[in-house]
């Protein structure tokens, strides 16, 4: 199973770009990399998913190097409302982990005015 390692916490200021890196050295060929955001007292919410290179959507970008042993979630111009815990999840529903989707400990991002 691909374990993930993320920084426990990060601080930023409004308007800055935030990059959160996740290490997953034993990622399997069939595994995808997915990032989730969680606010207190709520379930996690999907942000972005990728397999390799770069993926961008309306809220974030995901950078994955060729060896896929790490990934970086990039949040452009964060605001106070981006204060949350961010989880990197590595896995796939075919081959690989077959549903054994295990979250890492997450990164608590605090955005200050």
């Amino acid at each position: 199973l691909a374990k993930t390692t993320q920084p426990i916490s990060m601080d930023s200021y409004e308007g800055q770009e935030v990059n959160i890196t996740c290490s997953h050295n034993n990622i399997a060929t069939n595994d995808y990399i997915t990032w989730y955001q969680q606010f207190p007292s709520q379930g996690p919410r999907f942000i972005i998913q990728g397999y390799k290179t770069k993926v961008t959507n309306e809220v974030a970008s995901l950078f994955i190097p060729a060896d896929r042993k790490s990934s970086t979630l990039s949040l452009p111009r964060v605001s106070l409302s981006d204060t949350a815990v961010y989880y990197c999840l590595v896995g796939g529903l075919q081959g690989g982990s077959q549903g054994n989707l295990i979250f890492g400990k997450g990164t608590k991002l605090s955005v200050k005015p």
Partner: protein
Amino acid sequence: DAGITQSPRYKITETGRQVTLMCHQTWSHSYMFWYRQDLGHGLRLIYYSAAADITDKGEVPDGYVVSRSKTENFPLTLESATRSQTSVYFCASVGSGTGRTGELFFGEGSRLTVL
């Protein structure tokens, strides 16, 4: 309304009692999951199910029982609750077919306190 719902949202019980947490999804998603989240900690996978009548253990299955007789329901039972099972429990679901993990949809959570 479409979505994934959990019940009860809040439950207080005593040590040794049986408790069942319900999870219902309306999308006909193949996969369903139960996670627990302890105060200030991350999510830990308890059990998951790839389809009706197919379940498998996750990281922390001891003390829990699941069943999935219908695609839309995935109840989690604590047969004899212990204080260490005090936690917030999240149910999630995701479709399958493309090989991707897809987007996990989480319920609102069930906050369980065992006295």
